[in-house]
């Protein structure tokens, strides 16, 4: 693969974005790629929007990308998908967790959560939308949502053949191995 691939993950503090970015990075290294991964620390983590960027290919220089450069935007929340939309390449893919998480002005009753975001995204982008949070709850732990999203991205990247079980086990606490592996498998089997 000559061209460097760019992935932007967006969501809200606490959704497990940084963890799956690290898991994906480990997998990409095992697959033999050069990679750079960039994350934002500090004040942003206090319930604010969180993003990480992963770039991989033969040789990666910059750890970050600009607008219009992401081959994949993986959004863990609907409004965040809309907020970061301009990072997506016009022919890139948006993988969306169809899930709503109000921000401070919405919780305080000073703004309404916007309607029909998914409909608009469907119209304007190459969208893969799934209710990963619901699926995670069905599996037994809403926090496995991030692993469900990771599995979807994995499929799109054509990386299903990596030894995911090992990588997940290496990066997740033992008592959560089983449920996360289940979530990963379940997500891979979705059509």
């Amino acid at each position: 693969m000559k061209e460097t691939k760019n992935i932007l993950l967006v969501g809200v503090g606490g959704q497990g974005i940084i963890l799956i970015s690290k898991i994906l990075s480990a997998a990409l290294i095992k697959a033999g790629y050069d990679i750079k991964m960039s994350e934002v620390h500090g004040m942003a983590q206090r319930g604010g929007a969180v993003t990480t960027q992963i770039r991989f290919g033969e040789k990666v220089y910059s750890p970050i990308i600009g607008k219009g450069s992401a081959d994949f935007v993986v959004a863990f929340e609907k409004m965040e998908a809309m907020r970061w939309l301009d990072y997506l390449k016009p022919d890139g893919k948006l993988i969306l967790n169809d899930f709503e998480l109000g921000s401070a002005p919405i919780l305080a009753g000073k703004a309404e959560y916007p309607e029909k975001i998914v409909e608009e995204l469907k119209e304007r982008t190459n969208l893969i939308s799934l209710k990963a949070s619901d699926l995670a709850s069905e599996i037994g732990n809403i926090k496995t949502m991030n692993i469900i999203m990771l599995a979807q991205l994995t499929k799109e990247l054509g990386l299903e053949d990596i030894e995911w079980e090992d990588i997940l086990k290496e990066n997740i606490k033992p008592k959560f191995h089983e449920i996360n592996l289940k979530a990963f498998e379940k997500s891979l089997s979705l059509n």
Partner: protein
Amino acid sequence: MLGILFLQKIRLREFNPLYLRILSHNKTIYHEKYFTQTCIIDVYSKNFLKGVSNMKKLLTGNEATARGAWEAGVHFASAYPGTPSTEILETMANYKEVYSEWAPNEKVAVEASVGASIAGARSLAAMKHVGMNVAADPIFTYAYLGVNGGYVVVTADDPGLHSSQNEQDNRYYARHAKMPLIEPSDSQEAKDFIKEAYEVSERFDVPVLFRLTTRICHSYSLVELEDRKEVEVKKYKRNIQKFVATPAANRVHHVELEEKLKKLEEYANNETKLNREEINSDEIGIITSGISYQYAKEVFGEDASYLKLGFTFPIPKEKIRNFAKKVKKIYVIEENEPFLETEIKALGIEVTGKDKIPLTGELNPDIIREALLGEKRETVQPNPEKIVARPPTLCSGCPHRGMFFELSKKKGAVITGDIGCYTLGSADPLNAMDTVICMGAGVSAAHGFAKVFERTNQKRKVFGVVGDSTFFHSGITSLLDIVYNKSNATIIILDNRITAMTGHQENPGTGYSLMREKTDEVDFEKLVRAIGIKHVRTINPNNLDEVKESIDETMELEEPSVIITRYPCVLKKLHEEEKEEFAPVQHIYKVNTEKCSKCKMCLKIGCPSISFDKETGAYIDPNSCVGCSVCAQVCTFDAIEKVGV
């Protein structure tokens, strides 16, 4: 959920570069020869950094900087936490050959490590960019004196203000303090270059400034590891002429320093491998340093020639002149200030730089592409009507909430704030803050306000709020000012038992050190009484009656006073002795919709667990409520009820 994310110390993966994988028929087949060399990825072990040499690991620039300093034989490291620099010392603390500590502030960190350097040990101090303002005093003078054990100051600048109050470019400190400047552009260089920094420091008898930026600090890239080269602590011999900075001595030292800088410039031109040319084209030549090099390579690839500078002060003039002769057009690509550009222009060389590339904010490849090549990427435009802001907020159960809620009711009072999570007390709906300037100003600015109000007969109460760690950092001297010069400001020390914003570092109030040793814990009450504050009260900030009473009794006071709120950060992993004092809450709260009058009072505390529906009223998310009870205390209809024991 946030707590779990925050406390997960999952860091690094190690792997062997020779570990090859061949995919065939959907099966993974490992190349036999290399399979045995596969190493176990060790995430939970504290020893994850003790990798075998010649291994490659994915490291952040901060981790690589610590690794490089360890490999260089550093014995002493001191820092005050500050994004994006914090993980340098957190990583260093895992290397037992290095004594690592959190200092109360950056000036102390520098002075302590300067002492260690004079004592003969290779030493390091690390700080965020604004921390260097605090530490500037000893740095400037140590540049005059010269070192015994090699000495490096690491500054982590924050272009784009990801988590800072400004985006100052600390490269100017090198020029101002007259110390050599080294700038890596990724994790591998961070590790390699800091080793050279120690060689330069000892060979030229100068402290070295090592400059990182957020995207180097917090980006992961692959790093080849090497072993530690043990460097013996040099013998210390008293040398008054060198280490006692009297005017007479330093007149001589200044002359010597100018001579050292000339030699360092020769080194930068002819000897160091940190400054290198990549000649690909005679059309475009790019002069760049730090992360900007990576952005430039991304945009121009092999279509331009590069003068990649890693040793940027003293600037290698001869090398730049030579490079300029080899290309027709020169771009200087650098983030924020025109540090290189000004110097290059002073050589009479015509360049394109800040006339096209933005001076403010963080760069990225696309900004450079647009600025220099006029190429703009097509984008999918977000619909602004479908986006509501998502500002950071105080966490559910944050012990700062109760205090800011009660302060927000004191209309007309001035509240001077400070740097930390509690800066978020300034945000909607609490809106309980007038100023935030720098570390410690929450205390000292309160004094200035109180004096002006007093001298102009304005009856306005002044509160200064400051966190535990920030109070140790710069609040104590400010409180002395209040006592000594007699103002009636009330200082509120928000003691959440940890340095929270930067990711939970111990401090002199927590009873533990960076190297996880038990140590003496500062008693805030005793400390402020010793300074001369007579009216002192320690309260539980989750008990609103206590909070209100403690505030009310200061309103008419003619003397200075201190309120200490003592309750741990909701995300803190409690020490054993804290578990007794702050027993974990077993219950949460929920709204009894029949009793809820939809008055929205509970929304005024700004808790992210509480939302509101016009039909059903308030709702508390059971997944994120931690049972702090502040909402139940503000509800005048008793509609918020306890669930569980």
